[in-house]
Protein backbone atom coordinates (compact mmCIF):
# COMPACT_ATOMS: atom_id res chain seq x y z
CA UNK A 1 0.00 0.00 0.00
CA UNK A 2 1.37 3.41 -0.93
CA UNK A 3 2.26 5.69 1.95
CA UNK A 4 2.30 9.45 2.07
CA UNK A 5 4.07 11.71 4.54
CA UNK A 6 2.85 15.08 5.66
CA UNK A 7 4.64 17.85 7.49
CA UNK A 8 2.94 19.71 10.31
CA UNK A 9 0.40 22.12 8.82
CA UNK A 10 0.25 20.35 5.47
CA UNK A 11 -3.16 19.85 3.91
CA UNK A 12 -4.25 16.30 3.03
CA UNK A 13 -7.34 17.50 1.19
CA UNK A 14 -9.66 20.43 1.20
CA UNK A 15 -13.37 20.76 1.32
CA UNK A 16 -14.90 20.52 -2.13
CA UNK A 17 -12.11 18.51 -3.67
CA UNK A 18 -13.00 15.34 -5.47
CA UNK A 19 -12.48 12.13 -3.60
CA UNK A 20 -11.34 8.78 -4.84
CA UNK A 21 -9.30 7.37 -2.01
CA UNK A 22 -9.36 6.75 1.71
CA UNK A 23 -6.55 7.03 4.23
CA UNK A 24 -5.30 5.00 7.13
CA UNK A 25 -3.30 6.95 9.72
CA UNK A 26 0.01 5.18 10.35
CA UNK A 27 1.68 7.85 12.47
CA UNK A 28 0.89 11.32 13.68
CA UNK A 29 -2.27 13.33 14.04
CA UNK A 30 -4.64 15.14 11.77
CA UNK A 31 -7.21 17.83 12.31
CA UNK A 32 -10.59 17.79 10.60
CA UNK A 33 -12.05 21.24 10.12
CA UNK A 34 -14.74 23.04 8.25
CA UNK A 35 -15.74 26.62 7.62
CA UNK A 36 -18.72 27.75 9.60
CA UNK A 37 -19.85 31.26 8.70
CA UNK A 38 -16.42 31.94 7.33
CA UNK A 39 -14.70 30.76 10.48
CA UNK A 40 -12.66 27.63 10.78
CA UNK A 41 -14.27 25.12 13.07
CA UNK A 42 -12.38 22.05 14.21
CA UNK A 43 -14.68 19.08 14.23
CA UNK A 44 -12.39 16.19 14.97
CA UNK A 45 -8.92 14.80 15.40
CA UNK A 46 -7.59 11.66 13.78
CA UNK A 47 -4.82 9.53 15.16
CA UNK A 48 -3.00 6.27 14.55
CA UNK A 49 -5.16 3.50 13.08
CA UNK A 50 -8.03 5.87 12.28
CA UNK A 51 -9.48 5.56 8.80
CA UNK A 52 -10.83 8.63 7.07
CA UNK A 53 -12.22 9.43 3.68
CA UNK A 54 -13.55 5.92 3.30
CA UNK A 55 -16.83 6.88 1.71
CA UNK A 56 -14.82 8.48 -1.08
CA UNK A 57 -13.79 5.09 -2.41
CA UNK A 58 -17.35 3.89 -2.29
CA UNK A 59 -19.41 6.67 -3.81
CA UNK A 60 -16.97 9.37 -4.95
CA UNK A 61 -18.76 12.30 -3.34
CA UNK A 62 -16.66 15.44 -2.88
CA UNK A 63 -15.01 16.23 0.42
CA UNK A 64 -16.80 18.89 2.36
CA UNK A 65 -14.23 19.48 5.06
CA UNK A 66 -10.49 19.89 5.25
CA UNK A 67 -7.89 17.60 6.82
CA UNK A 68 -4.54 19.02 7.93
CA UNK A 69 -1.57 17.27 9.53
CA UNK A 70 -0.99 18.52 13.08
CA UNK A 71 2.51 17.08 13.20
CA UNK A 72 4.84 15.11 11.01
CA UNK A 73 2.52 12.28 9.96
CA UNK A 74 2.23 9.28 7.73
CA UNK A 75 -0.79 7.66 6.08
CA UNK A 76 -1.40 4.64 3.92
CA UNK A 77 -3.41 5.36 0.85
CA UNK A 78 -6.41 3.16 0.16
CA UNK A 79 -7.13 3.69 -3.52
CA UNK A 80 -10.17 2.38 -5.32
CA UNK A 81 -7.99 -0.23 -7.01
CA UNK A 82 -6.67 -1.21 -3.63
CA UNK A 83 -10.21 -1.42 -2.27
CA UNK A 84 -11.31 -3.61 -5.15
CA UNK A 85 -8.26 -5.84 -4.91
CA UNK A 86 -8.98 -6.37 -1.22
CA UNK A 87 -12.21 -7.98 -2.36
CA UNK A 88 -10.24 -10.78 -3.90
CA UNK A 89 -6.94 -10.88 -2.08
CA UNK A 90 -7.65 -9.88 1.48
CA UNK A 91 -11.36 -9.72 2.28
CA UNK A 92 -10.69 -9.51 6.01
CA UNK A 93 -9.06 -6.13 5.43
CA UNK A 94 -12.54 -4.89 4.56
CA UNK A 95 -13.76 -5.41 8.12
CA UNK A 96 -12.31 -2.16 9.53
CA UNK A 97 -14.29 -0.31 6.86
CA UNK A 98 -17.45 -2.00 8.00
CA UNK A 99 -16.68 -1.11 11.60
CA UNK A 100 -15.95 2.52 10.88
CA UNK A 101 -19.19 2.88 8.92
CA UNK A 102 -21.11 1.23 11.68
CA UNK A 103 -19.56 3.59 14.23
CA UNK A 104 -20.45 6.64 12.16
CA UNK A 105 -24.03 5.49 11.73
CA UNK A 106 -24.35 5.07 15.49
CA UNK A 107 -22.81 8.49 16.07
CA UNK A 108 -25.17 10.15 13.63
CA UNK A 109 -28.12 8.32 15.19
CA UNK A 110 -27.14 9.85 18.51
CA UNK A 111 -27.02 13.32 16.99
CA UNK A 112 -30.35 12.71 15.36
CA UNK A 113 -31.77 12.06 18.80
CA UNK A 114 -30.17 15.14 20.25
CA UNK A 115 -31.55 17.16 17.46
CA UNK A 116 -35.04 16.33 18.12
CA UNK A 117 -37.23 15.44 16.11
CA UNK A 118 -40.07 13.98 15.40
CA UNK A 119 -38.67 14.41 11.96
Amino acid sequence: METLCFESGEVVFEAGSSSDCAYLVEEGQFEVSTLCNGKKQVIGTLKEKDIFGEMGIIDNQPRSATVIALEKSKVSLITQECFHSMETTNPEALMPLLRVLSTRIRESFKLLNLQNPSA
Partner: protein
Amino acid sequence: MDNHFITFNKDEIIFLEGQSSDCAYIIESGKVGIYREDSLGNRFLVRELGNKELFGEMSLIDKYPRSATAIALKNTRCMIVERSRFDYMTKFHPHFTVSLIKSLTERLRATIARLNKAEPSRKGGLAIKTTVSDYYDIKGG
Protein backbone atom coordinates in the same frame (compact mmCIF):
# COMPACT_ATOMS: atom_id res chain seq x y z
CA MET B 1 -24.45 -24.43 7.73
CA ASP B 2 -28.02 -24.45 8.97
CA ASN B 3 -30.34 -21.64 8.08
CA HIS B 4 -32.96 -20.90 10.63
CA PHE B 5 -36.18 -19.12 9.96
CA ILE B 6 -38.47 -17.18 12.23
CA THR B 7 -41.91 -15.73 11.72
CA PHE B 8 -43.27 -12.51 13.21
CA ASN B 9 -46.87 -11.37 13.32
CA LYS B 10 -47.83 -7.89 12.16
CA ASP B 11 -46.84 -5.33 14.82
CA GLU B 12 -44.63 -7.80 16.64
CA ILE B 13 -41.35 -6.43 17.93
CA ILE B 14 -38.35 -8.20 16.40
CA PHE B 15 -35.83 -6.42 18.59
CA LEU B 16 -35.62 -3.28 20.68
CA GLU B 17 -33.07 -0.51 20.58
CA GLY B 18 -30.46 -1.08 23.29
CA GLN B 19 -30.85 -4.84 23.43
CA SER B 20 -27.76 -6.98 23.13
CA SER B 21 -27.75 -9.14 20.09
CA ASP B 22 -25.99 -11.87 18.23
CA CYS B 23 -27.84 -12.22 14.97
CA ALA B 24 -29.06 -10.36 11.91
CA TYR B 25 -32.08 -11.10 9.72
CA ILE B 26 -32.84 -11.38 6.03
CA ILE B 27 -36.48 -10.83 5.12
CA GLU B 28 -37.95 -13.73 3.18
CA SER B 29 -41.44 -12.27 2.98
CA GLY B 30 -43.31 -9.41 4.58
CA LYS B 31 -42.19 -5.98 5.68
CA VAL B 32 -40.19 -4.58 8.58
CA GLY B 33 -40.06 -1.06 10.01
CA ILE B 34 -36.89 0.29 11.60
CA TYR B 35 -37.65 2.81 14.34
CA ARG B 36 -35.70 5.16 16.54
CA GLU B 37 -36.78 7.12 19.55
CA ASP B 38 -36.25 10.85 19.89
CA SER B 39 -35.14 12.47 23.12
CA LEU B 40 -38.76 12.59 24.29
CA GLY B 41 -39.20 8.88 23.79
CA ASN B 42 -41.40 9.21 20.71
CA ARG B 43 -40.83 6.42 18.25
CA PHE B 44 -40.35 7.44 14.62
CA LEU B 45 -39.91 5.39 11.48
CA VAL B 46 -36.43 5.50 9.97
CA ARG B 47 -36.94 3.15 7.05
CA GLU B 48 -39.03 0.31 5.73
CA LEU B 49 -37.50 -2.91 4.53
CA GLY B 50 -38.87 -5.60 2.24
CA ASN B 51 -37.93 -8.82 0.55
CA LYS B 52 -34.34 -10.02 0.72
CA GLU B 53 -33.21 -7.03 2.74
CA LEU B 54 -30.78 -7.51 5.60
CA PHE B 55 -31.15 -5.80 8.95
CA GLY B 56 -29.63 -6.02 12.41
CA GLU B 57 -26.15 -6.52 10.97
CA MET B 58 -24.53 -3.57 12.72
CA SER B 59 -24.49 -5.42 16.01
CA LEU B 60 -22.70 -8.28 14.30
CA ILE B 61 -20.13 -5.88 12.90
CA ASP B 62 -19.32 -3.98 16.06
CA LYS B 63 -20.90 -6.11 18.82
CA TYR B 64 -22.71 -3.13 20.34
CA PRO B 65 -26.38 -3.27 21.33
CA ARG B 66 -29.11 -2.71 18.77
CA SER B 67 -29.02 0.85 17.44
CA ALA B 68 -32.71 0.83 16.53
CA THR B 69 -35.97 -1.04 17.06
CA ALA B 70 -37.33 -3.40 14.41
CA ILE B 71 -41.06 -4.13 14.17
CA ALA B 72 -42.90 -6.36 11.69
CA LEU B 73 -45.26 -4.17 9.63
CA LYS B 74 -46.92 -7.24 8.13
CA ASN B 75 -46.75 -10.90 8.92
CA THR B 76 -43.10 -11.47 8.16
CA ARG B 77 -40.76 -14.41 7.74
CA CYS B 78 -37.03 -13.92 8.21
CA MET B 79 -33.93 -15.97 7.89
CA ILE B 80 -31.75 -15.67 10.97
CA VAL B 81 -28.11 -14.88 10.23
CA GLU B 82 -26.16 -16.06 13.23
CA ARG B 83 -22.81 -14.58 14.18
CA SER B 84 -20.91 -17.66 13.05
CA ARG B 85 -22.53 -17.49 9.63
CA PHE B 86 -21.96 -13.76 9.38
CA ASP B 87 -18.29 -14.18 10.28
CA TYR B 88 -17.98 -16.94 7.72
CA MET B 89 -19.60 -14.77 5.04
CA THR B 90 -17.38 -11.77 5.73
CA LYS B 91 -14.31 -13.94 5.76
CA PHE B 92 -14.93 -15.98 2.66
CA HIS B 93 -17.39 -14.00 0.57
CA PRO B 94 -15.91 -10.57 0.00
CA HIS B 95 -18.76 -9.58 -2.32
CA PHE B 96 -21.04 -9.92 0.66
CA THR B 97 -18.77 -7.58 2.63
CA VAL B 98 -18.59 -5.09 -0.22
CA SER B 99 -22.36 -5.02 -0.59
CA LEU B 100 -22.58 -4.44 3.18
CA ILE B 101 -20.11 -1.57 2.92
CA LYS B 102 -22.19 -0.03 0.14
CA SER B 103 -25.41 -0.45 2.02
CA LEU B 104 -23.95 1.08 5.21
CA THR B 105 -22.60 4.01 3.21
CA GLU B 106 -26.03 4.65 1.71
CA ARG B 107 -27.57 4.41 5.13
CA LEU B 108 -25.04 6.82 6.57
CA ARG B 109 -25.74 9.34 3.83
CA ALA B 110 -29.47 8.95 4.38
CA THR B 111 -29.00 9.49 8.12
CA ILE B 112 -26.92 12.59 7.48
CA ALA B 113 -29.57 13.89 5.09
CA ARG B 114 -32.18 13.32 7.77
CA LEU B 115 -30.02 15.14 10.30
CA ASN B 116 -29.67 18.08 7.96
CA LYS B 117 -33.38 18.15 7.35
CA ALA B 118 -34.14 17.91 11.03
CA GLU B 119 -31.95 20.85 11.89
CA PRO B 120 -33.89 23.73 13.39
CA SER B 121 -33.96 26.60 10.93
CA ARG B 122 -33.33 29.29 13.50
CA LYS B 123 -30.12 31.17 13.01
CA GLY B 124 -27.50 30.76 15.64
CA GLY B 125 -29.13 27.53 16.68
CA LEU B 126 -27.44 24.19 16.80
CA ALA B 127 -24.36 24.08 14.67
CA ILE B 128 -24.93 20.40 14.31
CA LYS B 129 -25.86 20.44 10.67
CA THR B 130 -22.59 21.81 9.44
CA THR B 131 -20.59 19.87 11.91
CA VAL B 132 -22.19 16.58 11.24
CA SER B 133 -22.39 16.62 7.51
CA ASP B 134 -18.87 17.89 7.15
CA TYR B 135 -17.54 15.54 9.70
CA TYR B 136 -19.00 12.59 7.95
CA ASP B 137 -18.24 13.73 4.48
CA ILE B 138 -14.74 14.01 5.49
CA LYS B 139 -14.11 11.41 8.07
CA GLY B 140 -16.55 9.52 6.15
CA GLY B 141 -15.75 10.39 2.72
